[in-house]
């Protein structure tokens, strides 16, 4: 150790210090912007949720504790009633809609995405074109897809009803968007159409990491393709599948655009994000909307933290 020449060591540590300094300088602007557009606004939203802020008077907001979430209102005669988000049937309706939406769309998207990924993983002429076609729904703006489907699902002039009647699947035209029973289904259809490609691509990336010789060996042993899928493909693609499902699930929980454009002001399809936005900017209940936003944030934060803990994401090196 002592034989090591001093000057290079000194210059090496000087170099290291210089690199650390520049790393800090490189990171500062990015972190400042993120703190500015994400950290601070989030803190303010949570603060607003604990006040009586209204859209017209944000500055005059007064602290009212957790009353936006839950408040016992005493009538004075020993009787009373709960108020606040947690006692609001409208909020729980939105929670229910969001959960139904997330559960159905993510499951269908996973199954369909898997099927498409398996097809795209096979070798056939024109595969590049098919993959490009599959990307189209992903690239189309959500608003545009909602409008396109609103037109296709139109009760009088829509092509979906026309096809359904021609094929004998429908006996009478269905008012997909207007009727309460089918409105949420219509929203789900649009989301499934729009997001299945993304799912398929993530799964396809997982499929392509499976070494080909495993399949070769299975083929030589004469294993039935269905058995190959359950015993080889599915277990090996499972990690990619789980990551894709969780990202999609988190995305589905905050759904806003499709619902807002396809079925405006419809109780049957109001999701948590839509509920929050309505209270913030349409019903002039800014603080109440902030409370709803905060709850949605907490739900997503818990799932994310749980996922990171469970997956023990490798963030230091290597990784994906």
């Amino acid at each position, binding site marked *: 150790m002592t034989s090591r020449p001093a000057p290079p060591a000194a210059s090496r540590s000087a170099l290291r210090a210089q690199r650390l300094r520049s790393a800090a300088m490189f*990171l500062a602007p990015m972190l400042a912007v993120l703190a500015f557009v*994400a950290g601070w606004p989030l803190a303010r939203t949570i603060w607003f949720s604990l006040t009586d802020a209204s859209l017209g008077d944000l500055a005059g907001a007064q602290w009212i504790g957790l009353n936006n979430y839950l408040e016992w209102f005493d009538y004075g005669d020993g009787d009373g009633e709960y108020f606040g988000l947690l006692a609001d049937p409208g909020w729980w309706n939105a929670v229910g809609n969001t959960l139904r939406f997330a559960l159905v769309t993510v499951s269908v998207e996973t199954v369909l995405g898997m099927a498409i990924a398996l097809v795209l993983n096979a070798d056939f002429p024109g595969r590049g074109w098919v993959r490009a076609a599959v*990307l189209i729904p*992903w*690239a189309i703006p959500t608003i545009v897809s909602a409008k396109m489907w609103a037109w296709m699902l139109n009760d009088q002039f829509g092509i979906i009803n026309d096809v359904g009647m021609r094929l004998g699947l429908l006996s009478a035209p269905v008012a997909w968007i207007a009727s309460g029973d089918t409105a949420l289904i219509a929203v789900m259809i649009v989301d499934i159409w729009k997001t299945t*490609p993304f799912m398929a691509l993530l799964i396809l990336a997982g499929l392509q990491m499976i070494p080909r010789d495993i399949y070769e060996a299975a083929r030589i042993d004469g294993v039935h393709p269905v058995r190959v899928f359950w015993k080889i493909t599915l277990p090996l693609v499972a990690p990619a599948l789980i990551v894709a499902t969780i990202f999609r699930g988190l995305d589905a929980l905050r759904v*806003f655009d499709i619902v807002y454009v396809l079925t405006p002001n419809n109780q049957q399809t109001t999701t*948590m*994000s839509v509920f929050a936005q309505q209270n913030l900017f349409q019903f002039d209940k800014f603080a109440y909307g902030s409370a709803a936003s905060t709850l949605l944030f907490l739900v997503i934060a818990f799932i*994310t933290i749980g996922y990171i803990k469970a997956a023990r994401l490798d963030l230091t090196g290597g990784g994906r």
Partner: protein
Amino acid sequence: MTAMKLLKRAAFWALVAGIVLFSVFPFYYAILTSLETGSGIFTVSYWPDALDLGNYASVMNEGEFPRNFLNSVGVAVAVVIVSLCLAVTAAYALSRVPFRGRGLLLLTVLSVSMFPQIAVLAGLFEMVRYFGLYNTLGSLILSYMIFTLPFTVWVLTTFMRDMPVELEEAAIVDGATPLQIVVKVFLPLLWPALVTTGLLAFIQAWNEFLFALTFVASNDTRTVPVAIALLSGSSGKEVPWGEIMAASVIVTLPLVALVLVFQRRIVAGLTAGGVKG
């Protein structure tokens, strides 16, 4: 045996055809509708039977749609440039300089991309009004950083991490500063990653709706998604489906073109990022 094989082939191609039809048909149908005017719109047709550009003409000549289109282009381009500039240097620090807390920092950046937009909406609204950015495109450029920046940083970090150490060592021996290393050594090698992340950021900014709906309120400052969502006929009674579809096609064509040209890069970026679609 051969009949069985033939049947399998046919089933496979039917599946492929089904997938393509499922993906492309709604867009195809939007194009068909956009080329029809008058009562033609209200009869369902499966094949192009009209070629009337009237809807396109009225979308481009009446109202503020061309302006909205330019707004969208401006916002998306600005967002891409700003987030790439901020992300390249940050990604260098996160991928090439070992320091304590690096993993945690990366995790924090990643978790920002999980934020539901609605959670920051109230706070951002206050901020936008405070800085006098309400109803300006600046409010959108600023707020879009929340989803483009974490994503770009994450993807560029994973790209840079895989580059060989020797690259840098030679530059360090020559006495290059870290900024010179980023600009002279990494930037030329990084352009495929920059194209990929830039494209994805562009598409995200182009498609964003909630912030654009909230922070901008007049016809001439809107971006196209909001303009399309609010498009209603002059009479106010009938929904102008032909014009809506024409506007939709105009907005979507640039994206479809980008996807067809850069599909390989986009797929690579989506799967490397895996963060958000």
